[in-house]
């Protein structure tokens, strides 16, 4: 491990990679601050740039930097404008915005920055401990278990989609999976489902799909319903916090880093769930008089979600780096970028390409430090980006999505596919279908079929399902994950009706 750390330090401290961290964090902060643009759209837009770098560690470092930056930037607009740019920072606005209204915007931003820093750093420490352990276990896995594990991951994503959303999330996952089967795969050397169209021979473009699913609908929503971006024109000053305040938030940060990290590790439960849960837990265990403060500008109420969402971002790298299975839309995009760079994340990553693994971990520390010492003093200036008129902003976002799709495939037909999918994705968003499962399914589809085919061939049929206890166990878990939430909801409802309680409360 020490050797790995040194390799990581050496790679991460090269001038190019340091610039990548700093650049990524700044770009992420800038764009993450704009309401309506989440980390997934930003990373999707940045992928062509990252891929053309040609160096996997630099690309991953850049994209990871963009990811933290976006979360940090999102919390800035939550605090200053009550307009969260990212779903994971919605909980930060509960107490951050009231603090800003009281004229303590500077203090709120400092607390957010310190909490993010601590959450991210502790999360990276936990990642350093758990990822190697998990990947040594993962080396024992057979392709049957990999297949089962991916089924578990996909059903967990559906199960965490929320009440009444599980079937919709499942449809989207399956849609992603069938889109992954289009084109010519290495497995059979046969074109499948191309309907004779030459452009579909190589399948759908992953970047095009990522742009069409996230960036385009978000931009269209901004056009359809302009968000009011008028903040209080107060100056951001007084960035210092007192010793008693630091003492008050220290235990919160400690608890939430660990909790957030482990929530982030679970597939499907990302920064958003971690931040809401962190907020709820801290409110429940706070003393009576402090509970009253929550929602009115409590520093604990701000520190909890901020720590939790950053720790969860780090945690979501665990399944990506050790199993090669993304648990969230963002890590799915990162996985797509890595595959494009000819790196296959998984348990072998740490052995075959240790410099990538450790450099990413090291860059997490550096990235968090950059966010703390570089972004915090710059925040008053960066916040000026909120003043860019939307008349300019939206055409530029659209232009960058078009460029990304074009650069990825070098093909103008891709742009038409992008627009068509973007319109479909917007319609799906209107109808409240979750879009991230589609992309995760699309990315996992190929790997899932490969592993499925390999185990079918080894066992000459589907008998691997019951002959390997671990595979069977994982598949049972997957089934339970999908069925249990709807069963529980049904039972709760029938109970409520039996007691004569009205529905809907």
């Amino acid at each position, binding site marked *: 491990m020490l050797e790995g750390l040194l390799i990581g330090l050496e790679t991460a401290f090269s001038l190019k990679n340091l610039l990548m961290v700093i650049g990524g964090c700044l770009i992420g902060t800038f764009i993450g601050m704009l309401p309506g643009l989440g980390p997934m759209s930003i990373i999707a837009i940045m992928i*062509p*740039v990252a891929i*053309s770098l040609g160096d996997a560690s630099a690309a991953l470092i850049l994209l990871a930097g963009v990811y933290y930056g976006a979360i940090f930037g999102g919390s800035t607009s939550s605090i200053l404008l009550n307009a969260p740019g990212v779903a994971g920072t919605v909980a930060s606005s509960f107490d951050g915005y009231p603090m800003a209204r009281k004229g303590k915007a500077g203090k709120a931003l400092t607390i957010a920055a310190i909490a993010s820093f601590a959450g991210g750093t502790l999360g990276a420490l936990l990642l350093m401990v758990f990822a190697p352990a998990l990947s040594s276990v993962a080396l024992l896995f057979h392709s049957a278990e990999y297949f089962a594990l991916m089924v578990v991951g996909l059903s967990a994503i559906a199960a965490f989609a929320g*009440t*009444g*959303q*599980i*079937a*919709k999330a*499942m*449809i989207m996952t*399956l*849609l992603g999976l*069938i889109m992954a*089967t289009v084109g010519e795969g290495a*497995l*059979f050397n*046969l074109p*499948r*489902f191309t309907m004779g169209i030459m452009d579909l021979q190589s399948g759908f473009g992953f970047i095009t799909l990522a742009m069409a699913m996230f960036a385009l609908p978000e931009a*269209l*929503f901004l*056009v*359809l*319903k*302009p968000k009011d971006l008028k903040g209080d024109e107060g100056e951001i000053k007084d960035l210092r916090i007192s010793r008693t305040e630091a003492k008050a938030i220290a235990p919160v940060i400690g608890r939430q880093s660990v909790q957030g990290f482990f929530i982030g590790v679970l597939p499907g439960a990302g920064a958003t769930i971690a931040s809401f849960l962190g907020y709820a837990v801290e409110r429940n265990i706070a003393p009576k008089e402090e509970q009253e403060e929550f929602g009115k500008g409590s520093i604990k109420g701000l520190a909890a979600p901020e720590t939790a969402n950053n720790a969860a971002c780090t945690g979501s790298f665990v399944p990506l780096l050790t199993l090669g299975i993304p648990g969230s839309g963002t890590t799915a995009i990162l996985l797509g970028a890595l595959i494009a760079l000819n790196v296959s994340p998984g348990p072998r990553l740490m052995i075959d390409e240790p410099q990538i693994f450790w450099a990413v971990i090291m860059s997490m520390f550096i990235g968090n430090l950059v966010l703390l010492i570089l972004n915090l003093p710059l925040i008053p200036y960066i916040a000026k980006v909120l003043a860019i008129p*939307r*008349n*300019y902003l*939206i*055409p*530029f976002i*659209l*232009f960058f999505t*078009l*460029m990304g799709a*074009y*650069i990825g495939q070098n093909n*103008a037909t891709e*742009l*038409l596919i*992008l*627009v068509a999918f973007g*319109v479909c994705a917007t*319609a*799906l968003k*209107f*109808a*409240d*279908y979750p879009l991230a499962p589609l992309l995760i399914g699309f990315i996992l589809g190929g790997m899932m079929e490969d592993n*499925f*085919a390999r185990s*079918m*061939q080894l066992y*000459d049929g589907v008998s691997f399902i019951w002959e390997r206890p671990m595979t069977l166990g994982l598949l049972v878990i997957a089934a339970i994950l999908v069925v249990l939430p*709807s069963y529980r*909801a*049904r039972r709760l*409802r029938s109970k409520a009706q039996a007691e004569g309680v009205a529905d*809907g409360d």
Partner: protein
Amino acid sequence: MALDRWIALILLGIFVTYGYAAWFTMDDNLAPFMRRNPIWPSTFPKVLSVLGVIACLIVLFGLEKSEPKEPEIDYRRLTDYNLGQAIALLALMVVYALCLRPAGFIFSTSAFLILGPIILGERNWKIMIPVALTATFVVWYLVQEVLGIYMRPLPGFIGG
């Protein structure tokens, strides 16, 4: 019928068509030696199509009750929003896609970046045109020179 069920119906159609191809037409021209394999190119799609049809039927018949929640945009009153602008921008994107090759990158991109703000109601020419032209040249330089991806800068008839 609400939009989410209409969409489920459309997706059901997609899954059924996909399933039809996987179950009935795909295997016809499979090479004989591949037929002895335990896995065929159609095996995985067959499983997916069945699961997809089941999931669509669950949504279509509303078997899974969901709580009505306030949507960000109510699609029933789309005309209350800036629908015209959105459609115009989408049309602009399609035109851009069709023009990018024949008209060259510089011409089509600056037109896109000028027409975009016009659609959204911007009339400040003094800022709009310089911003669009600068952005076009910067992006062209980055893509062409830094990333090394060829983009025809000018239309063919002036030698681009």
